[in-house]
């Protein structure tokens, strides 16, 4: 059982997810006490000898003796989990997996729609082993419909949701977030779906299949615009402006000499009171009595006055000055800024859990009974390959050693 206390303690999750959306979902669930067992291929974390540096680097800055366990982007999403490395393509591995399914509460995966059925491990097969099982599947475009077999990654799904109509500097300059925005939306949507299904199971005693696509999760987030389109027609990008706030934008600040393209502040004048506070700062060139329509009409001039002011002050001081006048404002933060930020520090948001005290983003759900003091770091690949089988399937150490020798389970990648 998980050592993490929380409302999901006792919920057993078999986690076959990879990349971002799926592992994010299971990290959230493990933070709430669920027992998450990552079911990984022996090569799931890469080769035993590194070929290239991972995108976010190595934990500790170098690959170390076990590079497959030091991929920073992977580690960030795998705290509190256990790891069993199991070859699902061998019959014995598949049988073991089905044995685990029989005593699990949840199986979650984010493969393509074809993958699990191709291994004869689709929902029908799994639910036949465990009628209380909740199966969460998160393919890019779902398991049905004309696009079901389309190859999908977060950045390519994003434009298919309509967001490209609004995100950009202008009509002629649309932009993609280039940060796979659909993945965090899909991850949290998967968690919402799973919790809904768990609550339903309390009533019915039966499991179910939770299906979400990155595509539909993303389209849902654009819901207000999709209805606005039906109410009033064409919507266009606002750049950094806002339909109901002015001034609203990004303003350059005095350089800190860091060459990080980050000397900017976001300002959002959200009501008349905030405008009056801002106007007292900006001086005679603006009128504190201008209402929203007047401020929209004079937006370009107000922006120029505001940026003249902001260019004389660094972004942190600018934000504090504006906040003191009741204006929503914040510095554009880089990673070092985020880690040094006082609010996050005061609430101990980043947790130096992993090796080399690498700070990892924490859990935004604060409530009594949850504490990061319970957390365990990302497990080495296959660290629990034997112990999970001991505990969940009551296998003996002799039996699991034989599985290890036969390479049905693994504790490191093959050489």
């Amino acid at each position: 059982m998980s050592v993490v206390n929380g409302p999901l303690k006792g919920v057993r999750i078999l986690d076959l997810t990879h990349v971002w959306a799926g592992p994010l979902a299971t990290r959230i669930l493990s933070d709430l006490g669920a027992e998450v067992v990552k079911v990984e291929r022996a090569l799931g974390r890469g080769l035993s000898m590194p070929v290239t540096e991972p995108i976010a680097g190595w934990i500790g800055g170098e690959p170390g003796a076990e590079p497959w366990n030091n991929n920073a982007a992977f580690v960030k999403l795998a705290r509190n989990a256990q790891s069993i490395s199991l070859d699902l393509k061998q019959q014995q591995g598949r049988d073991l997996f089905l044995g685990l399914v029989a005593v699990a509460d949840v199986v979650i995966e984010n493969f393509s729609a074809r993958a699990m059925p191709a291994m004869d491990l689709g929902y029908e097969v799994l639910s036949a082993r465990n009628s209380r099982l909740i199966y969460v599947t998160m393919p890019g475009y779902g398991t049905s419909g004309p696009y079901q077999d389309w190859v999908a990654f977060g950045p390519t799904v994003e434009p298919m949701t309509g967001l490209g109509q609004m995100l950009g500097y202008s009509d002629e300059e649309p932009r993609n977030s280039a940060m796979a925005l659909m993945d965090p939306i899909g991850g949290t949507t998967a968690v919402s779906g799973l919790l809904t299904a768990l609550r339903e199971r309390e009533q019915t005693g039966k499991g179910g299949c939770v299906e979400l696509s990155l595509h539909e999760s993303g389209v849902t987030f654009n819901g207000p615009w999709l209805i606005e389109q039906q109410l009033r027609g064409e919507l266009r990008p606002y750049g950094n402006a806002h339909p109901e706030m002015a001034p609203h934008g990004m303003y350059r600040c005095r350089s800190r000499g860091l060459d990080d393209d980050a000397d900017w502040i976001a300002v959002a004048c959200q009501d008349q009171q905030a405008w009056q506070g801002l106007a007292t700062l900006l001086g005679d060139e603006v009128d504190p009595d201008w209402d929203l329509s007047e401020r929209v009409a004079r937006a370009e001039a107000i922006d120029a006055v505001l940026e003249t002011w902001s260019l004389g002050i660094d972004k942190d001081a600018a934000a504090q000055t504006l906040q003191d006048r009741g204006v929503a404002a914040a510095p554009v933060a880089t990673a070092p800024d985020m880690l040094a930020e006082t609010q996050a520090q005061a609430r101990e948001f980043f947790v130096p859990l992993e090796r080399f005290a690498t700070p990892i983003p924490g859990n935004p759900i604060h409530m009594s009974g949850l504490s990061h003091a319970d957390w365990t770091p990302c497990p080495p690949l296959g660290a629990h390959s034997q112990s999970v089988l001991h505990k969940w399937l009551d296998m003996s150490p002799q039996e699991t050693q034989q599985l290890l020798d036969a390479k049905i389970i693994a504790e490191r990648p093959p050489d």
Partner: protein
Amino acid sequence: MDRILEIGAYSAGFCGRLFAHAGHAVTRVESTQPPAWASQDAMSLFLHPGKRRLYADPSRFGDLAAEADIVIVEAETAEAAYALGFEHWTTPVKVVITPFGLTGPKRNWRATPSTLLAMGGYSQIIGDAGRAPLSLPGHYVEFQGAQFAYTAANGCRFAGESNTVDISLYESLLALSQFTTVMWSCAQRVRSRHGSDFYWVVPSNLFACADGWVYINTVPTFWDAMAAFLELPELTIDPRFTDNDLRMQHRDALHALIANALGAVSKAEIRRRSVAARIPAGVVLTFDEVLADEHLAERGFWQRIEDSDGRHYTSPSLGFCIDGRARKPMTLRKIEADESL
């Protein structure tokens, strides 16, 4: 079925929407709303169908909360949240959503989605180098906070626990940052803006086509297929492009070749080709195109919403579906003056 009391703006509204769609009885207390990215009509049609909506004086909130199993409170600051008196309410599960949480030196800072996205590290990486960072439009911030609120509240109910949950929208963003902070901690690299280019995996960018735009995302295993999709098979043997490191070095040359290859191709043809080549590509769809999309229609994704005057709208349903159940039509009810649950 739980009884949910919802007090607040778009984050509480999205959380209540999740509960309403899951079949719980949601009562929303209406109030003046902060600025939104769409009209208040559109926000209500999206967020509030299936809920009972009423006006109530804040002095009545405690009584209303006493009748609920879960109360979702969203407030502008911690001080504003405490002014509602939620800590005295007897509801078993109380979820309080604020921009920065109920504690900490910035608990009373004012915030909007754009200022939170700036602090949360998103704005620094969206937009063009040397130009103003682009703030993500829409209500991503509030909706993500809502999903954490929904998760926490359901978790408490699942465990049979009473609890007070403190959700910070700022921390919700930090929790969902891609790899921004670990990249700094582990590789000493500070992320910055590269337009639409996902800088580390080349080519991954937005390209103009004959009638719009297309995004391609070429993780290394897709490189040969991508060359086939582009109808430029010679790229696979071009020594400038044989691996991702080389493609990063010769990014501009490669982007120019791709721009030239796609510039005269229609969105429809790009979709046909990307399916044939099995490569990840997505065309930029307008909202009208999304509303008319055959895939979403065939999957029964849309929900029919009726307003109190009998007009109908097409709305996205939930982002997930359980056991393939059909999405049921819902109604946006009139606001009541009645204050009793």
